[in-house]
């Protein structure tokens, strides 16, 4: 078989070029550290790298979000802690005020102290984060949530929105609580019904003359109480001084004046005899209301107490009522109001602590999501590295092999093209 001279040259050059091309490619890989220089090298791998990079970036974003969520919740937690401490302090003052040896001036100075705490509470409720957005305003972040229109009357100007944040692909977590939840919508009394001593509608001063103190009461059967049509009850006392010792009797009437025990209009003598501290029971028919409460002390003739369904009372009203009581009341009237105030303060504290616990548990969840996210980040790095990074050991050994191949091709080419008959003519 013949071989032409140009074929010898062409083949030699072609194989040298081929070796050089492969060598240059390996050199590029070594220089960039990437196995995939262009999508041609591994199309599926190249596409996968892009996808995993997006997942990695998203994961990083979620990490940033958890930081932001933690800081928002942290601020809220600090505020709630202050609120809890404040309410505790106010409770202490209220309990102190129950000391019968305090005179009007002592009470007035306690009241002044409380006025300061009231303003402090208003300030905490209106607190902002570092960017001028109010913590407890719901969605209306730029609006101040709590404003006092007249002393003791605080209106809520925010809404009930709860801001959410995406901390993982499937989890949005609340990073704020609406002020209405924390400060405004707190049930008074025992949560179901509230007892109180009557006050003059204008002066708001107690009208009872005796020393009867009514407690908060308890709900024995909530279903039965819920079924009661007329929840506006009055406890009336009658003291018969004509006998010695005097006999005190009581009755419980509804709005129309009928006794709930008999069903007929209430009239003296009342059906039940009163002993200080014993329970007034409305749990066995009649009536079967499922509630009971107790009075202790010595009510005067004609003294009454009201029992009503619980309504929402905000913490500012509670504080304001307490301050007014310290400034205007004394004796049993003060004692009854202190009882009411303490009950409501407990409810407020309860609410603040509940929200704070929920914030705490959210922060805990965020932490665990964050640590899962960190593990995921490592995994993504690993996947991308496996797809994209060069195996240096293999590449360097390939480089050496290619070099040898290239040198061999070049040397053999030189040898062959040096052989010609013309050298001998």
């Amino acid at each position, binding site marked *: 078989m*013949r*071989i*032409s*001279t*140009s*074929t010898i040259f*062409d083949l030699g050059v*072609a194989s040298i070029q081929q070796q050089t091309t492969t060598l240059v490619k390996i050199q590029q890989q070594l220089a960039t550290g990437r196995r995939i*220089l*262009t*999508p*041609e*090298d*591994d*199309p599926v791998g*190249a*596409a*996968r*790298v*892009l*996808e995993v*990079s*997006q997942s990695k*970036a*998203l994961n990083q*974003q979620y990490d*940033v*979000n958890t930081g*932001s*969520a933690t800081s928002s919740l942290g601020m809220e937690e600090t505020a709630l802690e202050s609120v809890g401490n404040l309410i505790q302090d106010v409770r202490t003052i209220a309990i102190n005020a129950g000391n019968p040896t305090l005179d009007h001036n002592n009470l007035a100075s306690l009241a002044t102290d409380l006025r300061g705490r009231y303003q402090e509470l208003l300030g905490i409720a209106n607190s902002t984060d570092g*960017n*001028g*957005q*109010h913590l407890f*305003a*719901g*969605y*209306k*972040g*730029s*609006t101040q949530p709590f404003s006092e229109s007249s002393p003791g009357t605080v209106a809520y100007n925010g*809404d*009930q*929105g709860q*801001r*959410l*944040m*995406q901390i993982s*692909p499937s989890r*949005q977590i609340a990073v*704020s609580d609406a002020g*209405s939840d924390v400060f405004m*919508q707190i049930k008074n009394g025992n949560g179901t019904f509230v007892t109180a001593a009557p006050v003059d509608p204008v002066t708001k001063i107690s009208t009872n003359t005796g020393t009867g103190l009514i407690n908060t009461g308890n709900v024995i059967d909530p279903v039965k109480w*819920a079924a009661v049509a007329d929840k506006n009850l009055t406890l009336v006392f009658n003291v018969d001084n004509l006998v010695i010792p005097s006999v005190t009797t009581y009755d419980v009437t509804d709005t129309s004046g009928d006794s709930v025990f008999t069903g007929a209009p209430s009239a003296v003598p009342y059906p039940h005899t009163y002993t200080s501290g014993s329970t007034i029971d409305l749990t066995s028919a009649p009536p079967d209301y499922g509630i009971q409460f107790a009075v202790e002390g010595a009510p005067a003739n004609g003294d009454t107490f009201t029992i009503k369904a619980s*309504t*929402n009372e905000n913490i500012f009203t509670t504080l304001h009522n307490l301050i007014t009581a310290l400034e205007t009341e004394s004796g049993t009237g003060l004692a009854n109001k202190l009882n009411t105030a303490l009950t409501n303060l407990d409810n407020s504290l309860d609410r603040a602590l509940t929200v704070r616990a929920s914030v705490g548990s959210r922060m805990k969840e965020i932490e665990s999501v964050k640590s899962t996210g960190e593990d995921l980040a490592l995994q993504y790095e690993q996947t991308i590295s496996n797809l994209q990074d060069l195996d240096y050991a293999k590449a360097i050994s390939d480089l050496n092999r290619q070099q040898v191949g290239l040198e061999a091709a070049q040397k053999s080419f030189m040898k062959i093209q040096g052989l*010609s*008959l*013309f050298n001998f*003519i």
Partner: protein
Amino acid sequence: MSGALDVGISGLRAAQIGLTVTGHNITNASTPGYHRQEIVQTANTPVNTGAGFLGTGVNVDSVKRVYDEFLDLRVQTAQTQSSYLETFSAQISQLNNMVADPNAGLSPALQQFFQGVHDVAANPASVPSRQSMISSADAMVTRFQALNQRFVEIREGLNAQVTASVDMINSYARQVAELNNRVVIAQASGSGQPNDLLDMRDNLISELNKEINVTVVRQSDGAYNVSMGMGQALVVGSQPYILTAQPSLDDPSRIDVGYQAGGGQVFYLQRESLNSGNLGGLLAFRAESLDTAQNSLGRVAIGLAQTFNDQHRLGQDLNDAIGDVFFNVMGPSGASGPNAVPSAKIIPNVNNNDLTPGASPTVTLSDVSKVTTSDYNLSYSDGSSSPAGYSLIRLSDKASLFTPPVVVAPGAQIGVVDGLTITAPTTAPANGYSWQIQPTRYGARDIGVAIHDTAKVAAAAPIISQIDNSSHGGTGNIGTGTISAGVVNPPPPTNAALQNKVTIAFIDATHFSVTDNTTSTVLAASVVYSPTTGATVSYNGWTTQLNGAPETGDSFTIGPNAKGVADNRNALLLAGLQTENKLAGGTASFQSAYSQIVSSIGVKTRDINVTAQAQASLVKQSQMAQQSLSGVNLDEEAANLLRYQQAYEAAGKMMQIASSMFDTLLALGQ
């Protein structure tokens, strides 16, 4: 004696010619297309003498070209396919390199943009966060446009190369025609084959084959008739025919190849007939890879803009206004702007001869999730030569989408297909009018950011549902019922009554009524509610969930979200678009659609390169076979030099002896 002298002279002559031919071979050893030449010696006719037949020496009959038609043809066939693959490979490498660096492609910009959206979701009222979202949107748009610009540059380069290739073909054809003339004249003179002219012509044919696949028919007078494609003649005798490179009728921005027949009329050549060689590679790359890649990128851009806009228009900005369009897309007039629905580009066929706006159909991308990456061709027939009505062809698979053709009045909707809504032109077209529809080609070019005022980023939702704290005479709800924050129903625009105040009042624990307080209408008098399963309530364009156990008299309100600057509900939904499958019939997210572009370019490049390598080795093999017959081997020629030199010396010596024999004869007479 004279016989011996004559024999000697003939030998000398033959050796001389042999040396000349060998020298010609040696000097032309590297000439491309050269076939080595040999002399054909025959013995002269013997003369009948008394002693028998005496030979009269040698005669050189001809100088023969060592040429095998079939080996040469094999090389050319392999070569034309190899040129096709190499050109395709060189072109697609541009695309390959464009998407090679993951940091220079679309992905980082896309991720940055959504990071900006997440930032706004985390701090909805913060102006710096909003500004950074708008800035990263700008950066992403710039990246789209930069990538698109590369496509445009490749396209323009391709146009130039098509023109250059056509020019080369024309030049080769002219030269072949001229050589045909010279060969015919030379052969007619009857003195053998003009080998070098033939070599030149064969070389030209070979070069022509690299540009486009040609077929050669040998004529009896020695001319080559060259034809290409589906039989269009390129050279007939000494007459060349012209190819032209001119703007396509369907799309003037593309250069197509035309054929100028006798009489000056130009026929456009179908791409299928130009399917090999350099020119074939260029056209195939453009139609198969470049168009698809640019359309795919455009689809990602339009898909992102449209889905983002749709969600943005369901939100509320810092001015308590319903969100506007966030991204600009191309509108019906062809201009980019804050258009609610993107439009496709319509290019009327040049033969329509009517460029007034009303004369073209309008095509909008009404459902971006169903849009494909193909272009379409709409044509109209009035019934004279084919069934009347509008027909639509999808160019990627040549599927006919309106069968039978649809007949509608001017301005009416023709149909909805592949996510496109096609409306007939307002002026009735004439028979044979056609338009090319490019739904996504210009998507990446036309995308823009419509909002630069940070207050207009719609992060909040326009409605909020709340527990009514003024129920029960002002003391608030008794039961444990809860209501979710509320969601606006897609698609935009929002319901006109969306922000009306609506009250959901519980008549008893298992029934509620829904009343629109703004219009004082009862939307539902009594709806059954189960505390164990809750209920989904949807009116006036919003939807909310009720859960828990409300009591009689409890109520909930849904109303406008005035001053809700810390609300991030819409921003969360916008951020969630990054991972939702909004393209390709609900199977691909924006990132995966882009990854598909990258991987399909990679796959095609590798495919072409592997095939090109295989074809290159095929070319090499056939070249080796051809060269082993027709190529010059310098060692062989060196041996031939020696041979002819010795033959010359021997013949010369013989003449010397014949001469001295004659001298001897002459000396006899002394």
